[in-house]
């Protein structure tokens, strides 16, 4: 089966500085794929290219087997939904209207929604548990609620791939887990390929099928979490000592960054096992 997303020898630079260097990888259909890396590693640039926002300067990107350049914007929008990094969306638009906007790629220029579209929107809101908020205005919601509304909108697009750029960055614990659970459900129940950038290594470890660890625009590691999350690789990526152990929940790795007071003379050597 063709991979959902395939990247071949992708390179990109802003002006003189190279941001992505000769990247090649593939994302399988229905996978939960999480991209990790420190700031400046090129994660967001990569995602913008995958979303069709930036044109690859060298190399190729294939979405669902077809070169991304061969898609019109609308065609791409019918297959792929994108949630960029956002702070807040505060304006007097109702939740329902915003979710309905997700139907745009499937409608004409005037965007005249039918009863069917309204039904789909309701389902999406129910799925993300924002239906009780349907008639509230966006500027009245909390960050977590806004995020779930935006995900509902993405679901309305009926995509096969969902791209999310640090969706949990500004959320509290409960909402972080809620969003990740939602993505997992989407993957399992609707077979949607989820491609996410995350800053939270532990969440990534618990949910991802495959991880991509980026540093300075190059791949430091790619594969299932157990393969990628070695402390040397992580230290090389993030530049700080970490401790990799097993999660109390069992079956997952847990990464603990090490504060200064715990570090021995030789930085980088792991302390004795607790």
């Amino acid at each position, binding site marked *: 089966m063709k991979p959902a997303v395939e990247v071949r020898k992708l390179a990109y630079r802003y002006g003189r500085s190279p941001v992505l260097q000769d990247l090649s990888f593939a994302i399988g259909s229905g996978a939960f794929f999480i991209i990790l890396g420190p700031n400046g590693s090129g994660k967001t640039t990569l995602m913008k290219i995958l979303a069709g926002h930036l044109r690859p300067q060298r190399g190729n990107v294939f979405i669902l087997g077809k070169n991304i350049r061969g898609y019109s914007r609308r065609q791409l929008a019918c297959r792929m939904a994108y949630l960029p990094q956002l702070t807040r969306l505060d304006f007097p638009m109702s939740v329902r209207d915003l979710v309905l906007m997700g139907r745009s790629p499937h409608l004409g220029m005037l965007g005249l929604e039918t009863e*069917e579209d309204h039904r789909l929107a309701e389902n999406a809101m129910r799925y993300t548990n924002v239906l009780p908020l349907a008639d509230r205005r966006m500027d009245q919601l909390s960050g977590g609620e806004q995020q779930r509304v935006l995900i509902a909108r993405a679901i309305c697009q009926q995509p096969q791939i969902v791209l999310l750029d640090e969706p949990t960055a500004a959320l509290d614990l409960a909402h972080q887990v809620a969003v990740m659970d939602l993505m997992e459900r989407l993957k399992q129940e609707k077979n949607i390929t989820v491609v996410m950038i995350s800053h939270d290594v532990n969440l990534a470890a618990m949910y991802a099928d495959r991880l991509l660890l980026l540093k300075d625009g190059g791949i430091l590691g790619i594969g299932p979490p157990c393969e990628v999350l070695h402390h040397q690789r992580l230290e090389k990526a993030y530049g700080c000592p970490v401790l990799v152990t097993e999660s109390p929940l069992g079956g997952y790795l847990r990464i603990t960054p090490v504060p200064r007071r715990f570090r021995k003379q030789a930085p980088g050597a792991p302390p004795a096992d607790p």
Partner: protein
Amino acid sequence: MSLGRPVIVRRMLLLSIPLLVVLLAAVYLGMSIGSTGVDLRAVARSLAGGLSDDPTLGTIIWQIRFPRALLAALIGATLSLGGLVFQAILRNPLAEPYILGISGGAAIGAISGILLGLSRFPGVSLTSFAGSMATLLVLMLIAGTRSMVQNNRLLLSGVMVNAFCGAVIMFLISITQDSRLHNIIFWMMGDLSLADMHQVTILGITVLPCFLFIFYLAHAMNVLLLGQEMAQSMGFDVRIIVSLLLVVTSLMVSATVSHCGLVGFVGLVIPHLFRLLLGADHRLLVPACLLGGGAYMVLCDILARTLPSHGEMPAGVVTALIGAPLFIYLLKRTER
């Protein structure tokens, strides 16, 4: 599985039909009220079968008041719509139709025409139109087409262009010392007194296609609110849409200003008013601004003609005197 009737179309009709009635009523009132009296029944008779017993009144109603009411409606519709579009594409609630240098350029063009001794129509209106299109061109060169979507740059460039034009205008006014000064000031305050059917028809033909075009892009304006990235990811080519909207709206506003001068305030407040009442869906706001803005301007023009005991007030004065308190009142009422 039936597709069902579009829900939004129903809402648009429920909104537009009453507003259209209000607009027609306002025009009727505009035809009935004038400096020589109130003739409600005469207008009705004239519409029904003709006013054969009083041809002078017929002339007054159809050749003086009717074109003026139509012109007011067109002005109100255009400026309100212009404000709505600029507020959407610049994503700034303080945006209004003159903000991108249109008023400055149009005024310089008009003043030049007046100083050259050209007649109001077509001479001064052509120079005014040329002036505003020239500033738009300059603005687009300064701001660059890339930053059409980096909204603050466009906005700031527009404000600077307007400020520069303002200085030039002050200078031109200060060196004019004869009766042309009078003409200049009237133009700058907004002047509907020269309306005739010929002029109104030309303006109508120019702006009606713009109305339709903007309505066609109403849904796109909704999606633009989400920001360039999300709008693009939903299939909209933001740069092209914003450029087209910018050019068409500027054209529409320039055409209007070149006919009647700088009527202020309508373009800022009417979109906000309807947004308070109807929400942010532009498919509703576009018809609302067109019809509601038109009706508002017709009513304000009636007041401008009848309130003073001699002569008339500039149209822009009435729109501000009435609009500002009304807006503040609505703002307080919808505060939750």
